[in-house]
């Protein structure tokens, strides 16, 4: 088998393995679907009146918040990948991967890309519920851009949390993985446009690169897609993916030292 074929088939089997948990463990997918869906519905019910504030970009709060729930679904799928990696390390399964002669980047890519698989189900649920409850239809291009950006974010999240898993090698790191994703997604223009955020959150959201991704996912649901609304998100994701993948790869290289 050529080197490229080995890498691609390794990525393939690891992605397929990740599907097992969803397909073979009844109820395993439920928490991942429930959390972002409840969040979307709950916030819409509680804070929906915020759209009456001057400067809000839409009259439909569910259209505004649905993209955040998509990002949450993607982010938590990535966090789950990190938690599962810790479990694999504790059970010795990771040694088996490490013993394979496969290049490390391919091993990591297989694990990271599997987060995208995991994210698809909750993202579909959130999208369906949101659209049924009146969220604006983003159009085909808006939908494709939203899904592409969110799935790429799931890879960023997975790289980050796998890096943490390799660093700490214990389930006690799980809350750190979940909390970091929580903050990454919510410390943005998650609840309201930047101008309407108050105090410290306005400052943090203006600095947080994930804000660009949230806005990129949101554009189809509130205004309409454009290149200027998309390219900042793509650039941010490319940089974040590079940095977090390198972080995880470094963790893999340091294993056993």
């Amino acid at each position, binding site marked *: 088998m050529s080197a490229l074929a080995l890498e691609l088939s390794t990525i393939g089997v690891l992605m397929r*393995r990740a599907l097992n948990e969803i397909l073979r463990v009844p109820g395993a997918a439920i928490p991942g679907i429930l959390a972002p869906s409840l969040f979307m519905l709950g916030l819409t019910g509680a804070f929906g009146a915020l759209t009456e504030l001057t400067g809000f970009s839409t009259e439909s709060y569910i259209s505004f918040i649905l993209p955040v729930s998509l990002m949450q679904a993607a982010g938590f799928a990535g966090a789950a990948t990190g938690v599962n990696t810790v479990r694999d390390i504790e059970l*010795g*399964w990771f040694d*088996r991967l490490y*013993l394979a002669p496969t290049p490390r980047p391919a091993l990591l890519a297989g694990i990271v890309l599997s987060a995208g698989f995991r994210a698809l189900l909750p993202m579909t649920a959130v999208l369906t519920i949101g659209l049924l409850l009146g969220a604006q239809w983003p159009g085909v291009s808006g939908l494709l851009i939203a899904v592409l950006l969110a799935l790429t974010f799931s890879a960023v999240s997975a790289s980050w949390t796998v890096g943490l898993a390799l660093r700490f090698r214990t389930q006690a790191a799980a809350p750190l993985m979940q909390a970091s994703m929580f903050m990454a997604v919510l410390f943005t223009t998650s609840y309201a446009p930047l101008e309407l955020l108050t105090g410290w959150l306005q400052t943090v959201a203006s600095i947080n690169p994930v804000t660009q991704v949230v806005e990129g996912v949101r554009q189809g649901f509130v205004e309409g897609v454009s290149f200027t609304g998309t390219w900042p998100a793509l650039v941010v994701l490319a940089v974040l993916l590079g940095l977090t993948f390198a972080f995880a790869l470094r963790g893999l290289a340091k294993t056993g030292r």
Partner: protein
Amino acid sequence: MAAIEVQGLEREFKGGVKAVQGIDLAVGEGEIYAFLGPNGAGKTTTVRMLTTLLRPTGGRALVAGHDVAKEAAAVRRQIGVALQEAALDPLMSGHELMRLQATLHGLPRAEGRRRADALVERVGLGYAKDRRVGTYSGGMRRRLDLGMALVHEPRVLFLDEPTTGLDPSSRAAIWDEVRRLNDEGTTVFLTTQYLEEADQLADRVGIIDDGRMAIEGTPAALKAQVGQPHLDVCLTDGANDHAEGVLARFGEVRPGIEGVHFQVTLAGGAGDIAPVVRALDEAGLAVAQLNLVNPTLDDVFLAETGRHLEGDQDTGEVAALSVESG
């Protein structure tokens, strides 16, 4: 070329803990080498270094001709590993895991499937190959783990305590498979805390204690170093004053309970048992019990370190011969 060559291998962990303190060993091609030692001696740390899971902090090790630190990927292509914990995914079936392992080792799909089909049968799991591993017993998991270690036909096989926790029949099945592999030319490096396992399987044994090699050699040669077999003789109560004199004809006698219990080293080995019994009978001495005690690797360890190997406190393999007094 040796299959495994180790020179001054060391591993120091954070906090200054030296789990392995400069060991030297060599394992020839096609050999079964048993690495024996008490818990915490450094066996697993050594195996993890030789299988590239842990980087040595000192010394050098070559496995299948490749340096474990500098040519780790080349080492991994040549070795199969079954670790102490059979690290298996409970959600996958045995056959799926075999095919996954084949893919990770670069076997083309058709070849991987063929190897998986053959190996599940070989390790006796053909009937359960499509069942999820979560339903397997401990013995089944170990057999699957062993099969997975063989999927790419490794030159050197590392087995870290392969039969710990298994029942006797499962253990025997693993032993049979190890012998068969070795007959086919695979070098086997085996760690164990079971003396009998090392005795039964190994061409050579290395005993590690507290991170250092205590002693190394063939099982027979090591045991011969600590002495010959001895006979535990227990006589019935009575006038046994002359018993020591009778027994002294056959070897050195160590009296136990006065006039009743004796230990005699058999200069002629087990072949002297019948003459001893005849001599005692002719002297009118009634035997209550007779036990032949062979030296064991634990005796070897005891002689070398002053301590027993953990988990096997019995000194000597006892072949109990109950002889009724006439």
